[in-house]
């Protein structure tokens, strides 16, 4: 991360937040340029807007990045601030580009911001009533916001958050392939270099598979592959994957989502010659087991409700996959089937809610509470019960053959509590703003876990326009809170406030010593 030496010995401001925000905005430029190219090639009329957004992004990002630097020692508050503000800044830029390219009008700026937050947080809840009314380049850019979000998430989950010890993620330090340096910056660059290759590789593979499958052209394939890899769930069609009405496409997407709900660190290990990494991992086994159990149970419930076995299996597998990986594609088809899970029996919906809470694995692009934490919590319970039987015994919580330190168990428990607290708080506010309790509660859960669709009125064939404007604001905040593992958003103001205070104090010092200036 060294800046080109345009001016020797220039004085750079030490600000990790501005530096990372600048870098983040610079990263968006190629995506916007590609989208502009597609828009121009497909005969759309918004390529200028996309080009302009690219220019804007570069014009803001480059100076920020150039004028600042990150020194060796970075306070935790600055790292949290950098992460949170990068996501906020990207979302704002995304909103600007959406308005500029006429996806939303100027007065609908809040919708644009919601859509953009939903994109960069890989959530996939949409407030576009008619997606297909937009140009192909603009829609590609909308898909790419999720792809960028996923890209950020992979690095965040495997190098930044473990470094900060968020919610017990320090257990993941051994997982991240990269520099084992104590310093953050080399670790981040190391992880990014290795994992982004895997991420891009998975995207291309899914895209090729979808392209070969009947029904999708290259554009559709890439558009949906990028949101599959990001477990985002945006689609370029109103009826999402259901638009293609193709079993092959659905199977490819199910496999893609499942793979992207696994840690990209495992994929990296597997690619570099250690495919046994999956089988050895307790999280992988639990995730797979839950997935299989969930599909079985939901299939049985739908089958029992009178749907044919094949359709029931197809739609159950798709929706369990889409919710357990927090993707949020819909497969409600014009030709029938039971893709819209809002119409399912309540017991099947509750099982889906369970998957919405748990989400995918740490190190994947999926959201939710994470399988890792479920694993720790479950083992904590079995330990507690054994302890009750044998009060003097010492039973460590073990993941594989590794004992989890007690303080980490405590922090995992605290994180999960916090997760529920924030969700319930969100539900309370959203219901207070006039949404019925089922839609509000599942909406909050969906936003917090970066799923996309919810139950009640905000199902997979509906959109988030059913929420009132302030309620959408609350949900957008929840999306970012959930995406960044809660703490970054809660602590995003700490570093800026501290820096401002320090600056004031320094000035006072200078003023009080007249001879020194």
């Amino acid at each position, binding site marked *: 991360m060294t800046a080109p030496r345009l001016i020797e010995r220039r004085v750079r401001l030490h600000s990790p937040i501005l530096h990372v925000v600048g870098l983040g905005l610079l990263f968006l430029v190629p995506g916007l340029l590609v989208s502009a190219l597609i828009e121009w090639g497909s005969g759309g009329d918004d390529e200028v807007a996309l080009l302009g957004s690219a220019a804007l992004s570069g014009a803001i990002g480059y100076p920020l990045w150039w004028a600042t630097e990150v020194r060796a020692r970075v*306070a*935790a*508050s600055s790292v*949290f601030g950098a992460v949170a503000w990068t996501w906020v800044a990207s979302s704002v830029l995304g909103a600007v580009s959406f308005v500029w390219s006429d996806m939303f009008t100027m007065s609908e700026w809040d919708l644009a911001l919601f859509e953009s937050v939903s994109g960069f947080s890989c959530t996939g809840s949409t407030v576009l009533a008619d997606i297909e009314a937009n140009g192909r380049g603009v829609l590609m850019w909308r898909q790419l916001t999720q792809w960028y979000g996923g890209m950020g998430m992979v690095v965040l989950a495997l190098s930044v958050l473990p470094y*900060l*010890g*968020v919610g017990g993620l320090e257990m993941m330090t051994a997982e991240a392939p990269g520099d084992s340096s104590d310093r953050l910056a080399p670790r981040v660059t190391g992880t990014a270099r290795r994992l982004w290759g895997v991420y891009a590789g998975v995207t291309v593979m899914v895209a090729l598979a979808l392209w070969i499958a009947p029904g999708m052209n290259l554009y559709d394939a890439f558009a949906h592959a990028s949101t599959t890899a990001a477990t985002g769930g945006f689609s370029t069609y109103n009826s999402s994957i259901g638009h293609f009405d193709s079993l092959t496409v659905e199977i490819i997407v199910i496999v893609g989502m499942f793979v992207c709900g696994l840690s990209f660190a495992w994929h990296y290990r597997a690619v570099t010659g250690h495919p046994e990494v999956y089988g050895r991992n307790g999280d992988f086994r639990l995730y797979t087991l839950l997935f299989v159990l969930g599909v079985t149970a939901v299939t049985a419930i739908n089958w029992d409700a009178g749907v044919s076995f094949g359709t029931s299996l197809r739609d159950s597998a798709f929706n369990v996959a889409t919710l357990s990986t927090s993707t949020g594609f819909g497969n409600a088809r014009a030709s029938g089937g039971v893709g819209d899970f809002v119409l399912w*029996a*309540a*017991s099947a*919906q*509750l*099982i889906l*809610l*369970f998957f919405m809470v748990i989400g995918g694995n740490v190190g994947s692009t999926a959201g939710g509470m994470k399988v890792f934490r479920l694993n720790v*919590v479950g083992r*904590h*319970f079995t330990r*507690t*019960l054994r*302890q*009750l*039987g044998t*009060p*003097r015994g010492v039973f460590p919580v073990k993941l594989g053959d590794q004992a989890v330190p007690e303080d980490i*168990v*405590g*922090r995992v*428990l*605290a*994180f*999960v*509590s*916090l997760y*529920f*607290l924030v969700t*319930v708080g969100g*539900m*309370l506010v*959203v*219901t*207070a*703003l*006039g*949404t*019925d*309790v*089922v839609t*509000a*509660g599942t909406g909050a859960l969906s936003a917090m876990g970066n799923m996309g669709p919810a*139950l009640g009125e905000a199902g997979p064939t509906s959109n988030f326009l059913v929420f009132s404007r302030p309620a959408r604001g609350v949900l957008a905040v929840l999306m970012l809170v959930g995406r960044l593992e809660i*703490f970054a958003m*809660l*602590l995003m103001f*700490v570093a800026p406030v501290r820096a401002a205070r320090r600056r004031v104090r320094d000035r006072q010092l200078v003023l009080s010593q007249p001879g020194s200036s």
Partner: protein
Amino acid sequence: MTTRAVDRPAPTPHLLRRRSLFERRVGSVVGVSIALTLLGLGVALLLTALVDVTESADNAIELAAVGLACLAGTSLGLAVFQLPDPVPASRVLPAIVSSWLTVFAVSTAVYAVTGVTDRIDDALFESVSGYTTTGLTTVVPETLSRGLLFWRALNQWMGGLAALMLGVAVIPFFGAERAHVDSLGGAHGAPRLAPRVRQGFRNLAQLYAVSTLALFVAFVVAGMGVFDGISYSLTTVSTGGFANHSSSFAHFDSAAIEWVAVAGMGIAGANIAVLWWALVGATRPLRRSIELRVYLGLMAVSAALATAWTWQDTGGGHATIRHAAFSVVSLTSTTGHRVVEWADWATATQGLILVLLGIGSMGGSAGGGFSVTRVLHLWGSLRRELRYQLHPRAVIAVKLSGRSVTEASLAGAAGYQLLYLAVGGAGAIGIAAFGSDLLTSTSASLAALATVGPALGDLGAFGDVSALDRGARAVLMVLMFAGRLAIYPLLIAAGALVRSLREVAR
């Protein structure tokens, strides 16, 4: 999670060890506790028969017969079983669980013998709902004789007392539930009830009886009849929720009675140690208890919100405030008395109701639920977690009411939250499997686990639980029982059962 004082022998009353009809009695904690439970039930049933005689004496003979059978069971049990010395700690919770099961069985027998319900599972539901102080009912109270109405109310009163004793004296020794323990052991500004367990029991029973009496007087002064006064004070002080009328408190249509009930329910859901010290003149615990302030504040804020949200639809005025306050206090204290159908309120209130169902009353009260105490523990550890995030190497103690809380206690609260959610979620899936909608099954599961009773959706304040499928009602029974015993004892007892079955098999 650490434990301590697990092997401490329970005090063995001499009476139970000396007089022996048989030469050698079998040492069994479970047997003796069942026998003693039957003693209590027998006396209660004879009393109920007496009450029945005061009106029509429809069921007096059946009641007395079951009561005498209970007493016969007691003498047989005490003749066969004795307390082993020392009492093995591992047998105490199985004994408690089996004495609860005995109570359910006897009460079921009473309902079956008197023909209150056609089916045995309805009778069981009624007794489980009664003893766990939940208050869902499958019968129409107006059709019952005076004796049976009294019996239902008395069930709840006994259940409330048993739950209090369980929380104060027994669960603390098992270490599973530190959050609960600390609330009773003085971490929240309230010293223990008494240094010794037996004296603690006595103080507690006295306070419970005195509150019942006071509430009875208040109800009668506010205009209730004597019999209604007795029944409603029994079901209010125990946070039970059974009523002598299908329309519960709406039957009286009296502001004075409703406000008395609000006060009674609020007090019933408060920590009994704090109340005890306040009553004997030490107001310091009362003033220092942050838990009490949060409990009262929660009810006040919720009542204000509910009032504001229902103001328009219900015409405003005193009645709106009163009904909102009544419903909120009824839900928070986990009583389940009803005066208005809260399921029909504006959608905004439903989230609030769900949250109140999820929080419940103060720890160390007759009320159930997750408890304000544990919520405060969680809140403390969350605030600490935020500070840890910025200062990873800091050593930070969580304090409540000016005293620091142990790590085990914090982990206990967090663990209990997840266990509670897991059981509640599983219960919701179970109820939904029998055809209830999402809101009904989720809220009913939460309400049963918190021993509130009425919930939202089809099972609102005046919802009819007999309209649910029998399977769903069976799930509700399990939830009520688990919630009443704070889940862990049930798991331990199940574990002990499995172990002894294995031993038998060997």
